[in-house]
């Protein structure tokens, strides 16, 4: 009988099985994958020994698989329209947002029926989610080849300031690449983990993360393995790319290149600008040699002073944002013990100088700013995969932007303010304004502004199935829940009748479930697999997880149950055990659900017990 197969206390049922988990930094410019192996965290190189994978995808025609990385990057100027770089800037965005990102649109965007724009390429129209999935797939293969087995799960990092749509898009990309995304982790938090565990730091830390296309500042409190984010602020369209663009525009002015020059010329200019910026991190001035479309060359010189003039307004923006983050965290500059620099763009000396000036201390630059985020993500992935059962590490993060609802007159009413610790749940009551009304629509927004038109719409939630009553009699409680990934979910109940109202979500900038399913079926990774087989395997994994967890629970807290309760649970467990080897995923799912129902009370009383234990000692000191 299943219950008797219990292992030694404190051990999982399969003690020797180490679950393979990796952390992935899906960056604007470069991406990396890292893992924890024999207690050491390391980023994984490709066959040529390169750790950084340029986040560039080149699509070829004729059913050929896309080229990802350095090779694609080298082709960018010759094949600009089929070579997609900095795709992260387009994640979770509508076509209108993309047009406002600054600079000319580098690709042929196609407006589709759905809210997610597509880029026209030789391999067909590609959404930013699919392009990101192609990058993730390469990292997945790299990790599985290096580690020699399939991955159990991954942690993917996102800018802390990513909104719900951008996070959802990232998670969808992971799914599309065939990954089990255990968690989306904020990049500055990941960096803090890598630094904190490395240096054993305690106290208040500021993480300044300036990447290729995004900027984040997070203020954290580190104490005994708990990383508590106090506030975060940033800009998801500000980064090293903007430095390059400012330099490129300056060159265009000097070299008399007009705004409507070719795509190829623009790509070359951006590359020259980037090289000049990098050279100025080492030298006082640098030569420019720009190849023009005419075949001629323009030559010039850029020095640090000129560079500083070009990028100072952009750096000034980041400093103002730092001030806001401190205010929100309710700490002053003097409280900050450590300032950590993350992201390739913090190699620009002027950035270090200005940030150091603001925080009145030298920022730490001793971990490779390109690798630190992936390293932190790998540590968290290792913990989430269950490889560190007694680990002290706990990350408490916040929601970066306020969530609100549209009210009368196009105004936004905030339900969850920014920098609220997640997970968080808030309820709001609504009523009907017409007799017999059975449905209503709620618009959910994210942002800090008062007007609906200045915030970002996350979607329309349509409620149906409200019992027919006179106007104002119904009490519909809508609960907004943001999970540890920073993703929103909405549920609604009619309180007077306790009827669960059904909710339909029409995301403003995201793929619908059907679209994702179609993409999954179309994608190469899944074409080989039998979808049905995959479903069965998924349910079997869940069945094992539930069984393992329950056996440990019974072993620890079986005394909370009566004999009759144990009997019911055992029966449900046996049933699941019996159907597990079957071929119908629905039957397995049903047995899991049944077991879950049978153990609902048990789970609740276990959690209650552990909470009491957590506080037990104190209450005696306090009131004894």
């Amino acid at each position, binding site marked *: 009988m299943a219950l008797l197969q219990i292992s030694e206390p404190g051990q999982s049922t399969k003690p020797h099985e180490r679950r393979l988990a990796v952390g992935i930094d899906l960056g604007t410019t470069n991406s990396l994958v890292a893992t924890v192996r024999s207690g050491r965290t390391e980023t994984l190189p490709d066959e040529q020994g390169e750790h950084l994978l340029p986040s560039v995808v080149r699509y070829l025609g004729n059913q050929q698989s896309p080229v990802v990385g350095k090779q694609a990057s080298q082709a960018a100027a010759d094949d600009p329209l089929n070579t997609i770089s900095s795709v992260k800037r387009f994640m979770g965005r509508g076509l209108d947002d993309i047009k406002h990102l600054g600079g000319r649109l580098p690709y042929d965007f196609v407006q589709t029926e759905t809210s997610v724009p597509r880029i026209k390429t030789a391999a067909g129209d590609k959404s930013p989610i699919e392009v990101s999935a192609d990058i993730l797939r390469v990292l997945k293969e790299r990790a599985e080849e290096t580690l020699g087995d399939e991955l159990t799960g991954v942690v993917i990092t996102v800018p802390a300031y990513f909104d719900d749509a951008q996070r959802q898009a990232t998670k969808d990309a992971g799914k599309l690449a065939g990954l089990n995304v255990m968690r989306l982790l904020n990049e500055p938090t990941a960096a803090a983990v890598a630094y904190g565990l490395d240096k054993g730091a305690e106290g208040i830390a500021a993480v300044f993360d300036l990447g290729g296309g995004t900027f984040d500042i997070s203020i954290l409190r580190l104490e005994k393995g708990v990383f508590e984010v106090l506030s975060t602020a940033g800009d998801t369209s500000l980064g090293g790319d903007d430095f390059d663009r400012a330099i490129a525009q300056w060159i265009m002015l000097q070299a008399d290149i007009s705004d409507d020059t070719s795509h190829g010329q623009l790509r070359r200019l951006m590359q020259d600008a980037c090289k000049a910026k990098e050279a100025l991190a080492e030298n006082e001035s640098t030569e420019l040699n720009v190849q023009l479309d005419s075949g001629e060359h323009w030559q010039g010189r850029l020095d640090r002073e000129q560079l500083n003039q070009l990028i100072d*307004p952009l750096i000034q923006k980041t400093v103002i944002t730092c001030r*806001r983050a401190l205010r929100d965290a309710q700490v002053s500059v003097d409280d900050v013990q450590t300032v950590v620099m993350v992201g390739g763009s913090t190699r620009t000396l002027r950035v270090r100088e200005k940030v150091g000036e603001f925080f009145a201390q030298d920022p730490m630059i001793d971990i490779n700013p390109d690798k630190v985020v992936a390293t932190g993500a790998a540590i968290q992935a290792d913990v*989430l*995969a269950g490889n560190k059962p007694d680990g002290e590490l706990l990350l408490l993060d916040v929601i970066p932007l306020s969530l609100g609802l549209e009210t009368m007159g196009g105004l936004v009413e905030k339900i969850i303010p920014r920098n609220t*610790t997640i997970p968080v749940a808030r309820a709001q009551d609504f009523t009907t304004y017409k007799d017999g009304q059975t449905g209503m629509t709620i618009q959910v927004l994210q942002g800090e502004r008062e007007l609906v038109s200045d915030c970002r719409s996350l979607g329309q939630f349509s409620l149906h199935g409200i019992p027919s009553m006179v106007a104002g009699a119904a009490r519909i409680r809508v609960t907004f829940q943001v*999970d540890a990934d920073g993703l929103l979910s909405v549920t609604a109940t009619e309180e007077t009748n306790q009827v669960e109202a059904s909710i339909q979500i029409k995301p403003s900038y995201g793929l619908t479930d059907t679209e994702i399913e179609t993409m999954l079926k179309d994608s190469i990774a899944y074409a080989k697999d039998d979808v049905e087989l995959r479903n069965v395997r998924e349910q079997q994994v869940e069945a094992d997880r*539930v069984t393992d967890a329950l056996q440990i629970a019974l072993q620890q807290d079986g005394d909370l149950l009566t004999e009759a309760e144990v009997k019911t649970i055992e029966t449900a467990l046996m049933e699941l055990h019996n159907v597990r080897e079957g071929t119908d995923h629905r039957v397995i799912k049903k047995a899991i659900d049944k077991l879950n129902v049978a153990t609902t009370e048990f789970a609740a009383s276990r*959690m209650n017990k552990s909470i009491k*234990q957590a506080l037990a000692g104190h209450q005696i000191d306090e009131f004894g």
Partner: protein
Amino acid sequence: MAVEFTQNYFEIFGLPVDFTIDTSILAERYRELQKTVHPDRFASASDRDRRLAVQQSAHINEALSTLKSPLKRARYLLQLNGIEFDDENETTMDAEFLMQQMEWREAVAEINQKQDPFSSLNQLMKSIDKKQANMIDQLQNLIRKQEYETAKVQVQKLQFMEKLLLECESLEQDLADAL
């Protein structure tokens, strides 16, 4: 539900029901509780247990955010003492307070014409902060003396101050966007 939702927020953290709290104890117990219930502790548990963990963890976060902010803590404490707030129909404030509000607001409106709007705004926000801290001290006294109705008015005044600060922040954002 496992954290007993009948417990008030002070009880959740094992703190006496009082406006004056030891914030370091609050922070420490918060961390201990989250170490027990946070969904990341249940990453390999069943879907149901993970959902339960999200609810528990969210409830503890709610309790923390209420107790951490002096204004929210005061409001919550007054509500525990039977004081009701009706935010739609605000009580009238005394003339002196309203005059000062108008002065602050004028100062905010004039920031744009200043030479260095960022540092002027920063100065202004600092003086609002200072006033706010002052008002919180007064609030503490009122609650200690159990003058709950007067304390309620003070809470409402502080809500005005909070709005004023929000306006300053949104102005700061506008200035930054214009860079």
